[in-house]
Protein backbone atom coordinates (compact mmCIF):
# COMPACT_ATOMS: atom_id res chain seq x y z
CA UNK A 1 0.00 0.00 0.00
CA UNK A 2 2.00 2.92 -1.18
CA UNK A 3 0.66 6.35 -0.54
CA UNK A 4 1.34 9.48 -2.45
CA UNK A 5 4.26 10.90 -0.56
CA UNK A 6 7.12 8.54 -1.45
CA UNK A 7 6.09 8.82 -5.02
CA UNK A 8 6.32 12.57 -4.85
CA UNK A 9 9.81 12.38 -3.48
CA UNK A 10 10.63 9.88 -6.18
CA UNK A 11 9.58 12.34 -8.81
CA UNK A 12 11.58 15.07 -7.22
CA UNK A 13 14.61 12.86 -6.98
CA UNK A 14 14.66 12.06 -10.68
CA UNK A 15 17.32 14.33 -12.00
CA UNK A 16 16.31 14.68 -15.62
CA UNK A 17 13.54 17.09 -16.59
CA UNK A 18 10.66 15.81 -18.72
CA UNK A 19 11.33 16.74 -22.38
CA UNK A 20 9.39 19.87 -23.43
CA UNK A 21 7.41 18.10 -26.14
CA UNK A 22 6.31 15.46 -23.65
CA UNK A 23 5.24 18.22 -21.28
CA UNK A 24 3.17 19.81 -24.04
CA UNK A 25 1.52 16.51 -24.91
CA UNK A 26 0.72 15.95 -21.23
CA UNK A 27 -1.04 19.30 -20.94
CA UNK A 28 -4.62 19.01 -22.20
CA UNK A 29 -5.38 22.69 -21.87
CA UNK A 30 -2.37 23.84 -23.87
CA UNK A 31 -3.44 21.39 -26.56
CA UNK A 32 -7.02 22.64 -26.36
CA UNK A 33 -5.80 26.17 -26.90
CA UNK A 34 -3.72 25.19 -29.92
CA UNK A 35 -6.47 23.01 -31.36
CA UNK A 36 -9.00 25.83 -31.22
CA UNK A 37 -6.70 28.73 -32.10
CA UNK A 38 -5.12 27.20 -35.22
CA UNK A 39 -8.30 26.53 -37.22
CA UNK A 40 -9.98 29.67 -35.91
CA UNK A 41 -7.21 31.86 -37.26
CA UNK A 42 -6.18 29.93 -40.37
CA UNK A 43 -9.58 28.80 -41.52
CA UNK A 44 -12.34 30.97 -40.09
CA UNK A 45 -10.70 34.37 -39.62
CA UNK A 46 -8.70 34.22 -42.84
CA UNK A 47 -11.72 32.90 -44.76
CA UNK A 48 -14.12 35.51 -43.41
CA UNK A 49 -11.62 38.28 -44.22
CA UNK A 50 -11.45 37.10 -47.81
CA UNK A 51 -15.23 37.01 -48.12
CA UNK A 52 -15.56 40.50 -46.68
CA UNK A 53 -12.94 41.69 -49.15
CA UNK A 54 -14.79 40.56 -52.28
CA UNK A 55 -15.25 43.68 -54.45
CA UNK A 56 -18.63 44.99 -55.56
CA UNK A 57 -19.55 44.50 -59.22
CA UNK A 58 -19.48 47.47 -61.52
Amino acid at each position, binding site marked *: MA*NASPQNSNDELSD*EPIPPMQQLL*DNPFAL*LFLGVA*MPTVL*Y*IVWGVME*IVGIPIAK
Partner: protein
Amino acid sequence: MAVNRMFRVCPATGFKVHEPAEALMKINAVTAVVALLVGGILALLVILTRWQTVHLLPADAFYMVLTAHGLNMLVFWIIFFEVAVLYFCGTVLLNSRLATPTFAWVAYALMLIGALVNNYAVMIRGDSSVMFTSYVPMGAHWSFYLGLILFAVGALIACFVFLGTLVVAKAERTYNGSVSLVTFGALTACIIAVFTIAAGAIILIPTFFWSIGLISHIDSLMYRTVWWGFGHSSQQINVSAHVAVWYAIAAIVFGAKPMSEKVSRGAFLLYILFLQLASAHHLLADPGLTSNWKIFNTSYAMYLAVLASMVHGLTVPGAIEVAQREKGFNKGLFEWLRKAPWGNPVFSGMFISLIGFGFLGGISGVMMGTEQLNLIIHNTIYVPGHFHATVVVGTTLAFMSLTYFVIPTIFRRELMFPGLAKWQPYLFGLGMSGFSLFMMGAGTLGVPRRHWDMSFAGALMQHEFPATAWLMMTLMAITGLVAIVGGAAYLLITVCSVFIGKKITTPGFKHISARDNAAAPVSLPNVVVPSHGNIGTAGFVAPGTFVLAIGFLISFVLYYFVNWKYLSTVWPLN
Protein backbone atom coordinates in the same frame (compact mmCIF):
# COMPACT_ATOMS: atom_id res chain seq x y z
CA MET B 1 -22.12 17.60 -2.09
CA ALA B 2 -20.77 14.17 -1.42
CA VAL B 3 -18.77 12.71 -4.22
CA ASN B 4 -19.76 9.22 -5.22
CA ARG B 5 -16.55 7.22 -5.16
CA MET B 6 -18.01 3.77 -5.62
CA PHE B 7 -16.24 1.58 -8.10
CA ARG B 8 -16.39 -1.99 -9.24
CA VAL B 9 -13.38 -3.84 -10.48
CA CYS B 10 -13.69 -5.28 -13.94
CA PRO B 11 -12.89 -8.99 -13.61
CA ALA B 12 -11.72 -9.21 -17.21
CA THR B 13 -9.29 -6.32 -17.29
CA GLY B 14 -8.70 -5.28 -13.68
CA PHE B 15 -9.78 -1.73 -14.43
CA LYS B 16 -11.81 0.09 -11.84
CA VAL B 17 -15.15 1.28 -13.15
CA HIS B 18 -16.79 4.30 -11.56
CA GLU B 19 -20.46 3.51 -11.11
CA PRO B 20 -22.00 6.88 -12.06
CA ALA B 21 -19.72 6.95 -15.10
CA GLU B 22 -20.81 3.46 -16.04
CA ALA B 23 -24.48 4.47 -15.98
CA LEU B 24 -23.68 7.46 -18.19
CA MET B 25 -21.70 5.38 -20.65
CA LYS B 26 -24.58 2.95 -20.92
CA ILE B 27 -27.28 5.55 -21.46
CA ASN B 28 -25.25 7.45 -24.07
CA ALA B 29 -24.37 4.26 -25.93
CA VAL B 30 -27.94 2.99 -25.88
CA THR B 31 -29.26 6.33 -27.15
CA ALA B 32 -26.64 6.24 -29.88
CA VAL B 33 -27.85 2.82 -30.99
CA VAL B 34 -31.45 4.08 -31.08
CA ALA B 35 -30.32 6.90 -33.39
CA LEU B 36 -28.52 4.31 -35.51
CA LEU B 37 -31.74 2.31 -35.74
CA VAL B 38 -33.72 5.36 -36.88
CA GLY B 39 -30.97 6.37 -39.30
CA GLY B 40 -30.77 2.82 -40.61
CA ILE B 41 -34.46 2.62 -41.45
CA LEU B 42 -34.14 5.97 -43.22
CA ALA B 43 -31.07 4.68 -45.06
CA LEU B 44 -33.13 1.84 -46.44
CA LEU B 45 -35.71 4.31 -47.77
CA VAL B 46 -32.98 6.45 -49.34
CA ILE B 47 -31.43 3.46 -51.09
CA LEU B 48 -34.77 2.21 -52.35
CA THR B 49 -35.52 5.62 -53.81
CA ARG B 50 -32.18 6.21 -55.49
CA TRP B 51 -32.40 2.74 -56.95
CA GLN B 52 -34.26 4.00 -59.98
CA THR B 53 -35.94 0.66 -60.69
CA VAL B 54 -37.73 0.85 -57.35
CA HIS B 55 -37.88 4.64 -56.93
CA LEU B 56 -39.94 4.20 -53.78
CA LEU B 57 -40.63 7.64 -52.33
CA PRO B 58 -42.02 10.80 -53.94
CA ALA B 59 -39.59 13.73 -54.15
CA ASP B 60 -40.69 15.64 -51.04
CA ALA B 61 -40.63 12.54 -48.82
CA PHE B 62 -37.25 11.55 -50.24
CA TYR B 63 -35.65 14.87 -49.35
CA MET B 64 -37.18 14.74 -45.88
CA VAL B 65 -35.90 11.22 -45.28
CA LEU B 66 -32.47 12.12 -46.62
CA THR B 67 -32.28 15.11 -44.26
CA ALA B 68 -33.26 12.99 -41.27
CA HIS B 69 -30.90 10.18 -42.29
CA GLY B 70 -27.95 12.58 -42.42
CA LEU B 71 -28.68 14.15 -39.06
CA ASN B 72 -29.41 10.94 -37.17
CA MET B 73 -26.33 9.20 -38.49
CA LEU B 74 -23.72 11.92 -38.81
CA VAL B 75 -24.70 13.78 -35.67
CA PHE B 76 -26.82 11.87 -33.21
CA TRP B 77 -25.57 8.28 -33.53
CA ILE B 78 -21.95 9.23 -33.70
CA ILE B 79 -21.80 11.95 -31.09
CA PHE B 80 -23.81 10.06 -28.46
CA PHE B 81 -21.45 7.14 -28.97
CA GLU B 82 -18.43 9.41 -28.81
CA VAL B 83 -19.57 10.85 -25.51
CA ALA B 84 -19.70 7.28 -24.18
CA VAL B 85 -16.18 6.73 -25.55
CA LEU B 86 -14.95 9.93 -23.88
CA TYR B 87 -16.33 8.88 -20.52
CA PHE B 88 -14.80 5.42 -20.96
CA CYS B 89 -11.37 6.80 -21.83
CA GLY B 90 -11.51 9.41 -19.08
CA THR B 91 -12.61 7.15 -16.25
CA VAL B 92 -12.04 3.43 -16.87
CA LEU B 93 -8.70 3.76 -18.64
CA LEU B 94 -7.44 6.11 -15.94
CA ASN B 95 -9.04 4.28 -12.99
CA SER B 96 -10.64 7.59 -12.18
CA ARG B 97 -14.03 8.84 -11.11
CA LEU B 98 -16.02 11.01 -13.50
CA ALA B 99 -15.94 14.71 -12.71
CA THR B 100 -19.43 16.04 -11.95
CA PRO B 101 -21.79 13.26 -13.04
CA THR B 102 -24.58 15.81 -12.52
CA PHE B 103 -23.30 17.96 -15.35
CA ALA B 104 -22.85 14.85 -17.45
CA TRP B 105 -26.54 14.10 -16.96
CA VAL B 106 -27.43 17.69 -17.85
CA ALA B 107 -25.33 17.27 -21.00
CA TYR B 108 -27.14 14.07 -21.82
CA ALA B 109 -30.56 15.65 -21.26
CA LEU B 110 -29.73 18.61 -23.52
CA MET B 111 -28.42 16.35 -26.24
CA LEU B 112 -31.49 14.14 -26.04
CA ILE B 113 -33.92 17.06 -26.12
CA GLY B 114 -31.95 18.62 -28.98
CA ALA B 115 -32.04 15.41 -30.99
CA LEU B 116 -35.76 15.01 -30.41
CA VAL B 117 -36.58 18.63 -31.27
CA ASN B 118 -34.54 18.44 -34.45
CA ASN B 119 -36.18 15.18 -35.50
CA TYR B 120 -39.55 16.71 -34.70
CA ALA B 121 -38.80 19.61 -37.06
CA VAL B 122 -37.69 17.35 -39.86
CA MET B 123 -39.96 14.35 -39.65
CA ILE B 124 -43.10 15.45 -37.82
CA ARG B 125 -43.46 19.03 -38.94
CA GLY B 126 -42.03 18.03 -42.30
CA ASP B 127 -41.12 21.61 -43.22
CA SER B 128 -37.40 21.39 -42.63
CA SER B 129 -36.10 19.25 -45.48
CA VAL B 130 -32.97 21.35 -45.83
CA MET B 131 -30.46 18.49 -45.64
CA PHE B 132 -27.84 18.02 -42.97
CA THR B 133 -26.09 21.13 -44.30
CA SER B 134 -29.13 23.48 -44.09
CA TYR B 135 -27.55 26.02 -46.43
CA VAL B 136 -29.14 29.45 -46.29
CA PRO B 137 -31.10 31.12 -47.84
CA MET B 138 -33.18 27.94 -47.94
CA GLY B 139 -34.76 28.02 -44.54
CA ALA B 140 -35.96 25.44 -42.05
CA HIS B 141 -38.40 25.85 -39.18
CA TRP B 142 -36.73 27.51 -36.18
CA SER B 143 -37.03 24.34 -34.13
CA PHE B 144 -34.60 22.66 -36.55
CA TYR B 145 -31.81 25.06 -35.59
CA LEU B 146 -32.85 25.16 -31.96
CA GLY B 147 -32.61 21.37 -31.72
CA LEU B 148 -29.10 21.43 -33.16
CA ILE B 149 -28.03 24.24 -30.83
CA LEU B 150 -29.32 22.40 -27.75
CA PHE B 151 -27.59 19.24 -28.87
CA ALA B 152 -24.34 21.12 -29.43
CA VAL B 153 -24.46 22.78 -26.03
CA GLY B 154 -25.01 19.38 -24.43
CA ALA B 155 -22.09 17.90 -26.35
CA LEU B 156 -19.89 20.82 -25.32
CA ILE B 157 -20.73 20.22 -21.65
CA ALA B 158 -19.86 16.54 -22.13
CA CYS B 159 -16.47 17.58 -23.56
CA PHE B 160 -15.77 19.70 -20.51
CA VAL B 161 -16.84 16.88 -18.18
CA PHE B 162 -14.21 14.77 -19.94
CA LEU B 163 -11.56 17.50 -19.58
CA GLY B 164 -12.57 17.90 -15.93
CA THR B 165 -12.15 14.18 -15.45
CA LEU B 166 -8.59 14.43 -16.75
CA VAL B 167 -7.96 17.12 -14.14
CA VAL B 168 -9.51 14.99 -11.38
CA ALA B 169 -7.53 11.92 -12.37
CA LYS B 170 -4.30 13.86 -12.35
CA ALA B 171 -5.07 15.55 -9.03
CA GLU B 172 -6.10 12.30 -7.38
CA ARG B 173 -3.12 10.50 -8.87
CA THR B 174 -5.09 7.61 -10.23
CA TYR B 175 -2.38 6.96 -12.80
CA ASN B 176 1.27 7.67 -13.11
CA GLY B 177 3.11 9.68 -15.73
CA SER B 178 1.11 10.38 -18.88
CA VAL B 179 -2.41 9.31 -19.81
CA SER B 180 -2.72 6.23 -22.00
CA LEU B 181 -2.45 6.63 -25.74
CA VAL B 182 -6.11 5.79 -26.22
CA THR B 183 -7.13 8.46 -23.74
CA PHE B 184 -4.85 10.85 -25.60
CA GLY B 185 -6.68 9.99 -28.82
CA ALA B 186 -9.97 10.67 -27.05
CA LEU B 187 -8.55 14.01 -25.89
CA THR B 188 -7.74 14.81 -29.51
CA ALA B 189 -11.34 14.05 -30.46
CA CYS B 190 -12.56 16.19 -27.59
CA ILE B 191 -10.43 19.17 -28.62
CA ILE B 192 -11.63 18.96 -32.19
CA ALA B 193 -15.17 18.72 -30.84
CA VAL B 194 -14.76 21.98 -28.94
CA PHE B 195 -13.72 23.80 -32.12
CA THR B 196 -16.48 22.08 -34.06
CA ILE B 197 -19.17 23.15 -31.63
CA ALA B 198 -17.82 26.68 -31.43
CA ALA B 199 -17.98 26.99 -35.21
CA GLY B 200 -21.49 25.54 -35.15
CA ALA B 201 -22.55 28.09 -32.56
CA ILE B 202 -21.11 31.00 -34.55
CA ILE B 203 -23.28 30.14 -37.53
CA LEU B 204 -26.31 28.29 -36.19
CA ILE B 205 -27.26 30.84 -33.54
CA PRO B 206 -27.55 33.70 -36.07
CA THR B 207 -29.38 31.33 -38.41
CA PHE B 208 -31.82 30.55 -35.63
CA PHE B 209 -32.45 34.29 -35.15
CA TRP B 210 -32.85 34.61 -38.91
CA SER B 211 -35.47 31.83 -38.86
CA ILE B 212 -37.56 33.73 -36.30
CA GLY B 213 -37.16 37.00 -38.16
CA LEU B 214 -34.74 38.86 -35.92
CA ILE B 215 -31.99 38.95 -38.52
CA SER B 216 -32.88 39.85 -42.08
CA HIS B 217 -30.09 38.30 -44.12
CA ILE B 218 -27.42 35.65 -43.80
CA ASP B 219 -24.74 35.59 -46.45
CA SER B 220 -24.66 32.23 -48.22
CA LEU B 221 -20.90 32.17 -48.70
CA MET B 222 -20.23 33.18 -45.11
CA TYR B 223 -22.66 30.50 -43.98
CA ARG B 224 -20.99 27.78 -46.01
CA THR B 225 -17.52 28.77 -44.84
CA VAL B 226 -18.32 28.81 -41.14
CA TRP B 227 -20.84 25.98 -41.28
CA TRP B 228 -18.24 23.63 -42.72
CA GLY B 229 -16.00 24.46 -39.77
CA PHE B 230 -18.74 22.62 -37.92
CA GLY B 231 -19.88 20.10 -40.53
CA HIS B 232 -16.50 18.84 -41.63
CA SER B 233 -14.76 19.09 -38.27
CA SER B 234 -17.51 17.02 -36.72
CA GLN B 235 -16.32 14.24 -38.99
CA GLN B 236 -12.75 14.86 -37.86
CA ILE B 237 -13.92 14.12 -34.31
CA ASN B 238 -14.87 10.73 -35.68
CA VAL B 239 -11.50 10.18 -37.29
CA SER B 240 -9.68 10.87 -34.03
CA ALA B 241 -12.16 8.82 -32.04
CA HIS B 242 -12.03 5.80 -34.29
CA VAL B 243 -8.24 5.87 -34.51
CA ALA B 244 -8.25 5.82 -30.70
CA VAL B 245 -10.66 2.87 -30.87
CA TRP B 246 -8.29 1.07 -33.27
CA TYR B 247 -5.45 1.46 -30.81
CA ALA B 248 -7.72 0.32 -27.99
CA ILE B 249 -8.84 -2.80 -29.84
CA ALA B 250 -5.28 -3.66 -30.84
CA ALA B 251 -4.39 -3.44 -27.16
CA ILE B 252 -7.45 -5.38 -25.96
CA VAL B 253 -7.29 -8.22 -28.46
CA PHE B 254 -3.53 -8.60 -28.85
CA GLY B 255 -2.11 -6.79 -25.85
CA ALA B 256 -0.38 -4.67 -28.49
CA LYS B 257 1.56 -1.70 -27.28
CA PRO B 258 2.18 1.35 -29.44
CA MET B 259 5.35 0.92 -31.50
CA SER B 260 6.41 4.23 -30.09
CA GLU B 261 4.42 6.60 -27.93
CA LYS B 262 6.25 9.53 -29.45
CA VAL B 263 5.22 8.79 -33.01
CA SER B 264 1.60 7.96 -32.25
CA ARG B 265 1.08 10.95 -29.98
CA GLY B 266 2.95 13.19 -32.38
CA ALA B 267 0.52 12.09 -35.08
CA PHE B 268 -2.42 12.96 -32.83
CA LEU B 269 -0.82 16.36 -32.24
CA LEU B 270 -0.80 16.93 -36.00
CA TYR B 271 -4.52 16.16 -35.95
CA ILE B 272 -5.09 18.71 -33.20
CA LEU B 273 -3.20 21.37 -35.11
CA PHE B 274 -4.26 20.79 -38.70
CA LEU B 275 -7.07 18.30 -39.22
CA GLN B 276 -9.83 20.87 -38.89
CA LEU B 277 -8.48 23.04 -41.71
CA ALA B 278 -9.85 20.46 -44.13
CA SER B 279 -13.26 22.06 -43.75
CA ALA B 280 -12.09 23.93 -46.85
CA HIS B 281 -12.66 20.75 -48.90
CA HIS B 282 -16.23 21.87 -49.33
CA LEU B 283 -15.44 25.35 -50.60
CA LEU B 284 -13.03 24.56 -53.42
CA ALA B 285 -15.70 25.14 -56.08
CA ASP B 286 -17.04 28.33 -54.47
CA PRO B 287 -16.51 31.86 -55.76
CA GLY B 288 -14.55 34.53 -53.97
CA LEU B 289 -12.17 32.61 -51.72
CA THR B 290 -8.62 32.87 -53.05
CA SER B 291 -6.48 29.94 -54.13
CA ASN B 292 -4.05 30.76 -51.32
CA TRP B 293 -6.69 30.14 -48.72
CA LYS B 294 -8.00 27.13 -50.56
CA ILE B 295 -4.64 25.44 -51.09
CA PHE B 296 -3.37 26.06 -47.58
CA ASN B 297 -6.50 24.92 -45.83
CA THR B 298 -7.55 22.09 -48.10
CA SER B 299 -4.10 20.54 -47.71
CA TYR B 300 -4.27 20.72 -43.90
CA ALA B 301 -1.16 22.90 -44.10
CA MET B 302 0.92 20.81 -46.52
CA TYR B 303 -0.93 17.57 -45.79
CA LEU B 304 0.48 17.27 -42.29
CA ALA B 305 -2.77 15.72 -41.06
CA VAL B 306 -2.65 13.24 -43.93
CA LEU B 307 0.85 12.38 -42.79
CA ALA B 308 -0.62 11.74 -39.34
CA SER B 309 -3.26 9.41 -40.77
CA MET B 310 -0.63 7.55 -42.77
CA VAL B 311 1.37 7.17 -39.57
CA HIS B 312 -1.61 5.77 -37.66
CA GLY B 313 -2.34 3.52 -40.61
CA LEU B 314 1.14 2.05 -40.15
CA THR B 315 1.45 2.01 -36.38
CA VAL B 316 -1.88 0.37 -35.57
CA PRO B 317 -1.33 -2.76 -37.70
CA GLY B 318 2.38 -2.45 -36.91
CA ALA B 319 1.67 -2.72 -33.19
CA ILE B 320 -0.51 -5.76 -33.86
CA GLU B 321 2.24 -7.31 -35.97
CA VAL B 322 4.85 -6.76 -33.26
CA ALA B 323 2.57 -8.27 -30.62
CA GLN B 324 1.82 -11.26 -32.83
CA ARG B 325 5.46 -11.81 -33.73
CA GLU B 326 6.43 -11.67 -30.07
CA LYS B 327 3.85 -14.39 -29.48
CA GLY B 328 5.68 -16.55 -31.98
CA PHE B 329 3.85 -15.86 -35.23
CA ASN B 330 7.14 -14.68 -36.65
CA LYS B 331 7.29 -16.61 -39.94
CA GLY B 332 7.39 -14.85 -43.28
CA LEU B 333 5.73 -11.54 -43.95
CA PHE B 334 2.13 -12.28 -43.10
CA GLU B 335 1.87 -15.16 -40.66
CA TRP B 336 0.89 -12.65 -37.95
CA LEU B 337 -2.06 -11.55 -40.07
CA ARG B 338 -3.13 -15.02 -41.20
CA LYS B 339 -3.16 -16.24 -37.62
CA ALA B 340 -5.14 -13.24 -36.38
CA PRO B 341 -8.55 -14.02 -34.81
CA TRP B 342 -10.64 -13.40 -37.91
CA GLY B 343 -13.67 -14.96 -36.24
CA ASN B 344 -13.64 -12.43 -33.41
CA PRO B 345 -15.85 -9.50 -34.46
CA VAL B 346 -13.93 -7.13 -32.21
CA PHE B 347 -10.84 -7.70 -34.34
CA SER B 348 -12.36 -8.33 -37.78
CA GLY B 349 -14.53 -5.22 -37.57
CA MET B 350 -11.59 -3.08 -36.51
CA PHE B 351 -9.35 -4.40 -39.26
CA ILE B 352 -11.94 -3.92 -42.01
CA SER B 353 -12.51 -0.44 -40.64
CA LEU B 354 -8.79 0.31 -40.88
CA ILE B 355 -8.41 -1.00 -44.42
CA GLY B 356 -11.66 0.53 -45.68
CA PHE B 357 -10.92 3.89 -44.13
CA GLY B 358 -7.44 4.00 -45.58
CA PHE B 359 -7.91 2.60 -49.06
CA LEU B 360 -11.40 3.86 -49.87
CA GLY B 361 -12.02 6.84 -47.62
CA GLY B 362 -8.50 8.18 -47.27
CA ILE B 363 -7.37 8.06 -50.87
CA SER B 364 -10.65 9.39 -52.27
CA GLY B 365 -10.74 12.13 -49.65
CA VAL B 366 -7.29 13.45 -50.45
CA MET B 367 -7.95 13.21 -54.17
CA MET B 368 -11.16 15.22 -54.09
CA GLY B 369 -9.73 17.60 -51.53
CA THR B 370 -7.20 18.75 -54.14
CA GLU B 371 -8.13 22.22 -55.31
CA GLN B 372 -8.32 21.53 -59.04
CA LEU B 373 -9.44 17.90 -58.90
CA ASN B 374 -12.45 18.97 -56.87
CA LEU B 375 -13.88 20.54 -60.04
CA ILE B 376 -14.66 17.11 -61.45
CA ILE B 377 -16.06 15.79 -58.14
CA HIS B 378 -17.85 18.60 -56.33
CA ASN B 379 -21.44 17.71 -55.35
CA THR B 380 -21.49 14.53 -57.37
CA ILE B 381 -22.49 11.31 -55.65
CA TYR B 382 -18.75 10.65 -55.36
CA VAL B 383 -18.83 12.81 -52.24
CA PRO B 384 -21.24 10.62 -50.23
CA GLY B 385 -19.30 7.66 -51.64
CA HIS B 386 -16.20 9.04 -49.99
CA PHE B 387 -17.76 9.83 -46.65
CA HIS B 388 -19.60 6.55 -46.37
CA ALA B 389 -16.16 4.97 -46.62
CA THR B 390 -14.77 7.20 -43.87
CA VAL B 391 -17.69 7.63 -41.51
CA VAL B 392 -19.45 4.32 -42.01
CA VAL B 393 -16.73 1.81 -42.87
CA GLY B 394 -14.24 3.76 -40.75
CA THR B 395 -16.05 5.15 -37.74
CA THR B 396 -19.30 3.22 -37.49
CA LEU B 397 -17.68 -0.16 -38.02
CA ALA B 398 -14.94 0.65 -35.49
CA PHE B 399 -17.60 1.61 -32.98
CA MET B 400 -19.55 -1.55 -33.76
CA SER B 401 -16.54 -3.73 -33.09
CA LEU B 402 -15.91 -1.88 -29.83
CA THR B 403 -19.48 -2.67 -28.77
CA TYR B 404 -18.75 -6.38 -28.98
CA PHE B 405 -16.12 -5.79 -26.33
CA VAL B 406 -18.24 -3.42 -24.25
CA ILE B 407 -21.33 -5.64 -23.98
CA PRO B 408 -19.67 -8.25 -21.75
CA THR B 409 -17.42 -5.81 -19.88
CA ILE B 410 -19.58 -2.74 -19.25
CA PHE B 411 -23.11 -4.03 -19.77
CA ARG B 412 -22.17 -7.35 -18.12
CA ARG B 413 -24.20 -9.42 -20.55
CA GLU B 414 -23.24 -12.35 -22.69
CA LEU B 415 -23.29 -11.67 -26.41
CA MET B 416 -26.32 -13.22 -28.05
CA PHE B 417 -26.19 -14.78 -31.51
CA PRO B 418 -22.39 -15.20 -31.46
CA GLY B 419 -22.52 -16.98 -34.82
CA LEU B 420 -24.19 -13.99 -36.44
CA ALA B 421 -21.83 -11.62 -34.66
CA LYS B 422 -18.91 -13.42 -36.29
CA TRP B 423 -20.25 -12.56 -39.73
CA GLN B 424 -21.67 -9.15 -39.00
CA PRO B 425 -18.48 -7.09 -39.61
CA TYR B 426 -17.97 -8.80 -42.97
CA LEU B 427 -21.54 -8.25 -44.11
CA PHE B 428 -21.57 -4.65 -43.01
CA GLY B 429 -17.99 -3.75 -43.87
CA LEU B 430 -17.87 -5.35 -47.29
CA GLY B 431 -21.41 -4.26 -48.19
CA MET B 432 -20.61 -0.72 -47.22
CA SER B 433 -17.28 -0.77 -49.07
CA GLY B 434 -19.05 -1.86 -52.24
CA PHE B 435 -21.71 0.77 -51.68
CA SER B 436 -19.07 3.50 -51.36
CA LEU B 437 -17.11 2.28 -54.33
CA PHE B 438 -20.11 2.20 -56.68
CA MET B 439 -21.19 5.66 -55.55
CA MET B 440 -17.72 6.94 -56.39
CA GLY B 441 -18.00 5.25 -59.77
CA ALA B 442 -21.33 6.89 -60.49
CA GLY B 443 -19.94 10.22 -59.27
CA THR B 444 -17.08 10.20 -61.76
CA LEU B 445 -19.77 9.83 -64.43
CA GLY B 446 -21.46 12.97 -63.14
CA VAL B 447 -24.43 11.60 -61.17
CA PRO B 448 -25.35 14.30 -58.64
CA ARG B 449 -25.81 13.74 -54.92
CA ARG B 450 -29.06 14.65 -53.13
CA HIS B 451 -31.02 14.17 -56.30
CA TRP B 452 -34.39 12.47 -56.51
CA ASP B 453 -34.45 11.41 -60.13
CA MET B 454 -31.48 10.90 -62.42
CA SER B 455 -33.90 10.41 -65.33
CA PHE B 456 -35.05 14.05 -64.89
CA ALA B 457 -38.75 13.15 -65.18
CA GLY B 458 -40.88 16.21 -65.80
CA ALA B 459 -37.96 18.44 -66.72
CA LEU B 460 -38.16 20.63 -69.82
CA MET B 461 -34.76 19.47 -70.97
CA GLN B 462 -33.23 16.23 -69.87
CA HIS B 463 -29.78 14.86 -69.55
CA GLU B 464 -29.11 11.24 -70.33
CA PHE B 465 -26.53 9.63 -68.13
CA PRO B 466 -24.47 6.84 -69.69
CA ALA B 467 -25.67 3.28 -69.10
CA THR B 468 -22.65 2.64 -66.87
CA ALA B 469 -23.87 5.29 -64.46
CA TRP B 470 -27.23 3.54 -64.20
CA LEU B 471 -25.49 0.24 -63.64
CA MET B 472 -23.34 1.79 -60.90
CA MET B 473 -26.42 3.10 -59.14
CA THR B 474 -28.06 -0.32 -59.25
CA LEU B 475 -24.95 -2.00 -57.87
CA MET B 476 -24.79 0.72 -55.22
CA ALA B 477 -28.33 -0.14 -54.16
CA ILE B 478 -27.66 -3.87 -54.00
CA THR B 479 -24.46 -3.56 -51.97
CA GLY B 480 -26.25 -0.96 -49.84
CA LEU B 481 -28.91 -3.52 -49.03
CA VAL B 482 -26.20 -5.98 -47.97
CA ALA B 483 -24.87 -3.31 -45.61
CA ILE B 484 -28.40 -2.72 -44.31
CA VAL B 485 -28.65 -6.42 -43.47
CA GLY B 486 -25.30 -6.16 -41.68
CA GLY B 487 -26.50 -3.10 -39.79
CA ALA B 488 -29.73 -4.83 -38.83
CA ALA B 489 -27.72 -7.81 -37.56
CA TYR B 490 -25.70 -5.44 -35.38
CA LEU B 491 -28.84 -3.87 -33.96
CA LEU B 492 -30.40 -7.27 -33.32
CA ILE B 493 -27.30 -8.56 -31.54
CA THR B 494 -26.68 -5.48 -29.41
CA VAL B 495 -30.28 -4.76 -28.45
CA CYS B 496 -31.00 -8.39 -27.55
CA SER B 497 -27.74 -8.81 -25.65
CA VAL B 498 -28.18 -5.63 -23.65
CA PHE B 499 -31.81 -6.18 -22.73
CA ILE B 500 -32.34 -9.93 -22.62
CA GLY B 501 -28.81 -11.36 -22.74
CA LYS B 502 -27.65 -13.64 -19.95
CA LYS B 503 -26.24 -11.61 -17.06
CA ILE B 504 -22.59 -12.12 -16.30
CA THR B 505 -21.94 -12.43 -12.60
CA THR B 506 -18.60 -12.68 -10.97
CA PRO B 507 -18.31 -14.79 -7.82
CA GLY B 508 -17.10 -12.78 -4.88
CA PHE B 509 -17.93 -9.53 -6.63
CA LYS B 510 -18.10 -6.52 -4.42
CA HIS B 511 -18.07 -2.81 -4.78
CA ILE B 512 -15.11 -0.96 -3.49
CA SER B 513 -14.73 2.61 -2.52
CA ALA B 514 -11.82 4.22 -4.20
CA ARG B 515 -10.72 6.03 -1.09
CA ASP B 516 -10.29 2.78 0.81
CA ASN B 517 -8.34 1.35 -2.00
CA ALA B 518 -6.10 4.26 -2.79
CA ALA B 519 -3.36 2.05 -4.09
CA ALA B 520 -1.58 4.52 -6.25
CA PRO B 521 0.22 2.80 -9.09
CA VAL B 522 3.85 2.13 -8.52
CA SER B 523 6.26 4.75 -9.61
CA LEU B 524 7.59 4.49 -13.11
CA PRO B 525 11.11 3.30 -13.70
CA ASN B 526 13.38 6.12 -14.57
CA VAL B 527 14.57 4.50 -17.76
CA VAL B 528 14.22 4.80 -21.46
CA VAL B 529 12.59 1.83 -23.11
CA PRO B 530 14.84 0.19 -25.67
CA SER B 531 13.68 -0.77 -29.12
CA HIS B 532 11.86 -3.98 -29.77
CA GLY B 533 13.63 -7.33 -29.67
CA ASN B 534 14.77 -9.74 -32.34
CA ILE B 535 11.66 -9.97 -34.43
CA GLY B 536 10.94 -9.13 -38.02
CA THR B 537 13.49 -8.88 -40.77
CA ALA B 538 16.16 -6.48 -41.99
CA GLY B 539 15.89 -4.30 -38.90
CA PHE B 540 12.19 -3.85 -39.56
CA VAL B 541 10.13 -5.05 -36.60
CA ALA B 542 6.95 -5.01 -38.66
CA PRO B 543 7.96 -5.87 -42.24
CA GLY B 544 4.51 -7.20 -43.17
CA THR B 545 2.86 -3.93 -42.23
CA PHE B 546 5.51 -2.04 -44.11
CA VAL B 547 4.78 -4.02 -47.25
CA LEU B 548 1.08 -3.33 -46.81
CA ALA B 549 1.84 0.35 -46.35
CA ILE B 550 3.89 0.45 -49.53
CA GLY B 551 1.03 -1.26 -51.35
CA PHE B 552 -1.25 1.45 -50.01
CA LEU B 553 1.10 4.18 -51.16
CA ILE B 554 1.30 2.75 -54.67
CA SER B 555 -2.50 2.65 -54.98
CA PHE B 556 -2.63 6.18 -53.64
CA VAL B 557 -0.07 7.56 -56.11
CA LEU B 558 -1.64 5.79 -59.09
CA TYR B 559 -5.17 6.88 -58.27
CA TYR B 560 -4.05 10.43 -57.60
CA PHE B 561 -2.31 10.85 -60.94
CA VAL B 562 -5.02 9.03 -62.90
CA ASN B 563 -7.36 11.78 -61.74
CA TRP B 564 -4.95 14.53 -62.78
CA LYS B 565 -4.74 12.89 -66.18
CA TYR B 566 -8.51 12.87 -66.39
CA LEU B 567 -8.72 16.49 -65.28
CA SER B 568 -6.29 17.51 -68.02
CA THR B 569 -8.80 16.32 -70.63
CA VAL B 570 -11.73 18.52 -69.56
CA TRP B 571 -12.38 22.01 -70.91
CA PRO B 572 -9.69 24.54 -70.06
CA LEU B 573 -10.88 26.90 -67.34
CA ASN B 574 -9.30 29.91 -65.86
